[in-house]
């Protein structure tokens, strides 16, 4: 099996690579690439993302044919894709970080700044917070409700269809921290930095 981590100059992806390699051992081949054919022929794709919504979208668009290849993979061919952090946020139709930016539009909704209640809550939302699991997501197999995950973000994805939300976390309000829509998965938190429990989520995704 081949899992491709999309390398599109979206910031630091070393930890994502390390964690997937740790889980995969020698059984699964982990590729790090932006090669369109490699992505299309993969069994699974991971879309990381750090920095701003706009910088990530710009970086995706900066590689000719990449968005089309990802869309073909996830939407047309319905193969499993996991978006992490801004990787998840880009599923939205529109993002408001820096400036209004068009997203991939795979899941209806928008990405806007967390309401920090006039400074009552610090932003970015950095650190360990508990997830409240709302539906049985395939990537949450053997993950207990209220498990701690590591977060770093100031913006949140607000999907139109609340049924795609698989977990939320409490930070000024109930923030969406994971989604599942058919073959498309996303986590706002960083499973690659969430210790053993995060690695379990990665394992669940690899084993899908």
């Amino acid at each position, binding site marked *: 099996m081949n899992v491709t981590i999309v390398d599109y100059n979206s910031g630091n992806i070393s930890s994502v690579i390390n964690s997937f390699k740790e889980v995969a051992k020698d059984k699964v081949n982990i590729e790090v690439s932006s090669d369109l054919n490699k992505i299309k022929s993969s069994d699974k794709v991971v879309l990381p993302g750090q920095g701003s919504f706009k*910088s990530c979208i710009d970086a995706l668009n900066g590689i000719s044919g990449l968005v089309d290849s990802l869309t073909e993979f996830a939407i047309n061919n319905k193969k499993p894709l996991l978006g992490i952090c801004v990787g998840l946020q880009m599923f939205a139709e529109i993002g408001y970080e820096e400036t209004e930016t068009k997203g991939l539009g795979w899941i209806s909704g928008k990405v806007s700044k967390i309401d920090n209640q006039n400074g009552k809550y610090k932003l*970015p939302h950095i650190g360990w917070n508990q997830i409240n699991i709302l539906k049985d997501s395939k990537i949450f197999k053997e993950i207990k409700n209220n498990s701690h995950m590591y977060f770093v973000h100031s913006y949140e994805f607000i999907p139109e269809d609340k049924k795609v939300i698989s977990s939320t976390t409490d930070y000024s309000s109930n923030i969406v921290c994971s989604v599942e829509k058919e073959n498309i998965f996303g986590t706002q938190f960083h499973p690659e930095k969430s210790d053993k429990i995060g690695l379990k989520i990665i394992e669940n995704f690899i084993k899908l």
Partner: protein
Amino acid sequence: MLKNRIIPCLDVKNGRVVKGINFVDLKDAGDPVEQAKIYSDGGADEICFLDITASNENRNTIYDVVKRTSKKCFVPLTVGGGVRSVDDINKLLNYGADKVSINTAAVQNPEVIIESSKKFGSQCIVVAIDAKKKGDKWEVFTHGGRNNTSINAIEFAKKMEDSGAGELLITSMDRDGTQIGYDNDLMFKISSIINIPVIASGGVGNLDHLVDGIKLGNASAVLAASIFHYGTHSIQEAKQYLDSKGIPVRI
């Protein structure tokens, strides 16, 4: 609810830990990777390496340490010490650091903070401020505490937030190494005027000091070195103690 973080810090010199943990079962007490793994297995919320390598020719040793650690530890890893440029930051991130802390360069060339936070995202840019009290103010020191810049630490903290820092690591030089507790007055003043998280550092001698850093200093995270190095307390003990005092921690 967001948890307060406990961050053990390891001083690394020429690729080896200075002031290591005294654990009998350690194969190599000087190996930063092994020590970081003990901390992360013990429940550390993040790991911090401070590279205190003095000579330039040995500076590359930290990259190997970061690379090996990031393959073993799956909690966030912050690396600081001698970071001068956007290129240095890029290198550390590529070797597997999740965040880079910048001290002297942030004072000498704030452009580094502006540029790097744009390029890599604020989430990985930690500005480390060493401050010393003078009268009713605090002044910023650089070069590992050797140079007084006379810059007002609280104003500088605000400036760093505006420049794109994602977190501030505040070390009280008056308290560092004293084991009498953080300068919570300083922590509280900075935390009150900025909206990004403050990591308190410098002066921890017992577990109550961690509690005070959060309750009195309003810090989001507490960093300590010697109480963990010398095995006075384990990370788990620290967390259980904080929990017993009503502080939200990841257990």
